[in-house]
């Protein structure tokens, strides 16, 4: 038995991927659950509008401080309730303090940031009769409404990363990639032919999940379908690119799955759809900002739940486009290199020095 154990350790030591899994995964999970897993929102960002904006801000600030702090970022006496709703739809603030010429101030809460909305409810309750309140976009704070748009992104990520990389790696492991490379096909035929089916399948899945979510959970679709379609297509290019990149560094399906898990886990946990990004430690939040799913979730929730438009979603969309160019471009180049004839490194070096 000792011989078996020793042999297994020796083999494991040389299998860098498994060692990486053993080291990286615990660290990753520790970081995520230590710094990021925080359902409690302790600071709410707010905007105050209307003639009495400054007074109302002072009034709320003077109320006994609880566990929730209010951070009023802007005071705009000349703006009205409609402007405040637009600000919330654009996800600029967690809540809005609306004052009119008469009557008590009204607090508008964005119901699509579940945990912030729950914190806001605590705040409203503390203020008592001094204010009225309304929860917008998701009045019953239904979890499914928030989850379904995010799930669309997660499913696209799953198909793009795991299914695509396995599909490609299978071809490499079976040696049939070699066959494709010598057939009278252009590299672009092989690349597009190999990736397009996954693109179409993922697109079909996206439609299916959206429609099912709306039918089963009454999730609203308030915004522009075209905007979500464009964002979905761009996002799909990013995740397909990740899948292709994984396949170029993997020799078999097992390795591809290992790599895909390392890419998927942070996206699931740090993209803000389970744990609120605002409640994360700044360093961890920045990890979230480099993950494509974070930005797609912002767009899908904004479009479906808050009727957010391009004027407020241009930033996430631009970031996704940039990621698509970088990741998909790198993936196509690497894949192309694996199916075009290559010269040995020594020959290339000799060619340069000549």
């Amino acid at each position, binding site marked *: 038995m000792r011989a078996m154990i020793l042999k297994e350790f020796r083999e494991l030591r040389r299998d860098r991927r498994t060692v990486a899994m053993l080291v990286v995964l615990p660290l990753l999970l520790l970081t995520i659950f230590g710094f990021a897993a925080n359902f409690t929102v302790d600071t709410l960002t707010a905007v105050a509008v209307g003639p009495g904006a400054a007074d109302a801000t002072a009034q709320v600030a003077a109320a006994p401080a609880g566990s929730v702090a209010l951070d009023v970022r802007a005071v705009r006496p000349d703006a009205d309730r409609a402007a405040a709703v637009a600000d919330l739809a654009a996800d600029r603030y967690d809540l809005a303090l609306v004052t009119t010429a008469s009557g008590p101030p009204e607090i508008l809460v964005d119901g699509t940031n579940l945990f912030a909305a729950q914190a806001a409810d605590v705040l409203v309750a503390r203020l008592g009769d001094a204010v009225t309140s309304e929860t917008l976009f998701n009045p019953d704070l239904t979890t499914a409404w928030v989850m379904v748009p995010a799930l669309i992104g997660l499913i696209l990520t799953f198909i793009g990363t795991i299914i695509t990389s396995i599909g490609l790696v299978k071809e490499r492991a079976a040696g049939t990639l070699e066959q494709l490379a010598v057939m009278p096909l252009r590299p672009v035929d092989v690349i597009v032919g190999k990736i397009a089916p996954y693109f179409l399948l993922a697109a079909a899945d996206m439609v299916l999940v959206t429609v099912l979510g709306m039918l089963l959970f009454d999730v609203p679709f308030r915004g522009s379908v075209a905007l979500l379609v464009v964002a979905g297509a761009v996002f799909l290019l990013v995740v397909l690119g990740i899948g292709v990149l994984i396949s170029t560094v993997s020799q078999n399906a097992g390795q591809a799955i290992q790599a895909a898990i390392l890419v998927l886990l942070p996206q699931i946990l740090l993209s803000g759809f389970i744990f609120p990004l605002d409640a994360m430690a700044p360093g961890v939040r920045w990890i979230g900002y480099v993950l494509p799913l974070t930005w797609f979730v912002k767009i899908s929730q904004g479009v479906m739940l808050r009727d957010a438009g391009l004027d407020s979603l241009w930033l996430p969309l631009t970031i996704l486009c940039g990621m698509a160019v970088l990741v998909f471009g790198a993936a196509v180049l690497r894949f192309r290199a694996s199916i075009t004839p290559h010269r040995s490194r*020594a020959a290339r070096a000799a060619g340069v020095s000549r």
Partner: protein
Amino acid sequence: MTAGARVGATWGLTGVTVRAGGRTVLDDVTLAVPPGEVTAVVGGDGAGKSTLARLLVGRVLPDSGTVAAPGRARTGYLPATSGVWADLSVAEHVDLVASAARLDPATTRTRAAALLGAAGLADVPDRLGRALSGGMRQKLGFCLALLPAPDLVVLDEPSTGVDPVSRVDLWRMMSAAAADGVAVLLTTTYLDEAERAATVLVLDAGAEVYRGDPAGAAGVVRGAVAVLDAAPADGTPVWRRGRTFHALVRRAAGAAPADLEDAVIALALEHGGAATRARPRPPCRPPVADDVPAVVARHVVTTLGDVRAVDEVDLDVHPGEVVGLLGANGAGKTTLIRTLLGLLTPTSGTVTVLGGTPDRGVRRQIGYVPQGLGLAADLTVAENLAFVAAVYGLPGAPEPPPDLAGLRDRLVGDLGLGLQRRLAFAAALAHRPGLLVLDEPTSGVDPLARAALWDTVHEQAEAGAAVLVTTHYMQEAEQCDRLLLLSRGRAVGGGTLDAVLAGATSVEVRAAGWQAAFAALGAAGLPVTVAGRVVRVAGVEAGAVEGALAAAGVAGEVRVVPARLEEVLVLAES
């Protein structure tokens, strides 16, 4: 195959050198691949065969020299992995290749019908790639390579892991393609296969050892070969063929090499092969005193599912004896071995191994080298040996064989197949087994390395070990003292190689234009193949061949010759 012989240029390589990873993979190699002929490249693992094949299909570019190839659209390619998709059906494969090559549907239908018919795949259009046997997969891959009517077809080890029946089919298909005017290049590790090509290029570590007519190789050996009954005491380079020793000696002291294998070994030795391949001296087991058979199997039946994979087989293996199990894929070789090792329980019959029923205790005295070698690729040479020593409870780790001594700390996965096989042998012999079981012990290695491996096997036998090997290659079969021929689970023949071959005949046709004779005999429905420029038909009367030739108006010299081993195996199957 309707197209007539195309008038085409000769394809091939001129002075090609390829380097990769600081190593010269091909060193100034020149080879012409003319249309209408089969050209073979032979060599072991790491000889540069695959690189040569990939140069011709444009997957690798030469560092220097030139490659003449008809281009992607006019080249067919069968990669070593057969290039068949596990989840596509036969018909879907045809569709894929036809549309990649932009063939029109009518041409696709006629060509596919002809090719798949010749391969015996016409009746299974819906079968998935994964459901095909190794031989059928290779045949499908070959059909796909030929579907677009290429000028050049490149086949990388088409027969490795393929049973003899499919191998003969493949040769028939290759011959037909060549008769049709296609330039055919194949790579192989087996000389008996290369011998059938019109031109052979023998590669050793990327360098040419011999190029030309297979029959001419003996003529370029500087020395001569002496056949001896005992190994010479001086340092004369020597290799075994069965129970005799063949030595490379001065021209006057021996005869010209009798076959391609002797010629290639002699040439490799003259190229300096001996210096790099010192022969191993594994630990020898003290001879067994009494003559109790190491293996006694009586009326063994082993059922897998509802198939009698081994059906009423009797087998004895005595100490000091090398016994070969011969048969096609599915003949029951592996099932019989697993039954003898105690990994499968026989449904009926008795198995006695080293005096007892095969259990864990008995297995401690068996050395087993599976086809997959059973080495840990992520461990070094020394660590693999240490593992084996620890498992068998040996006092210390065995020393690696001399040619691996300098590679103690190299990862096994980085070694060539020949060295890996040597290490697997050393690991299997470390505990001085009384019975050695070897599953296709030398597939994939070059002739010199194969000779060294067989030296080890014979040394073990002489020291008193019983040896059981499976094979379907002539060169391995002739190393055995006795053979058992299996077909569909049953023993259908046995004895010495001569006894197995005795009586089986083949008809040879020498004609001025072999293509015409081949076409005529093929059209008459005879199982025809080509060896070099000679047409062969196995298992039929000479009269039938003469009749078919006369009917087609083809002149040729017909004679009856001894059958080759794979022809005997095919006849045993039918």
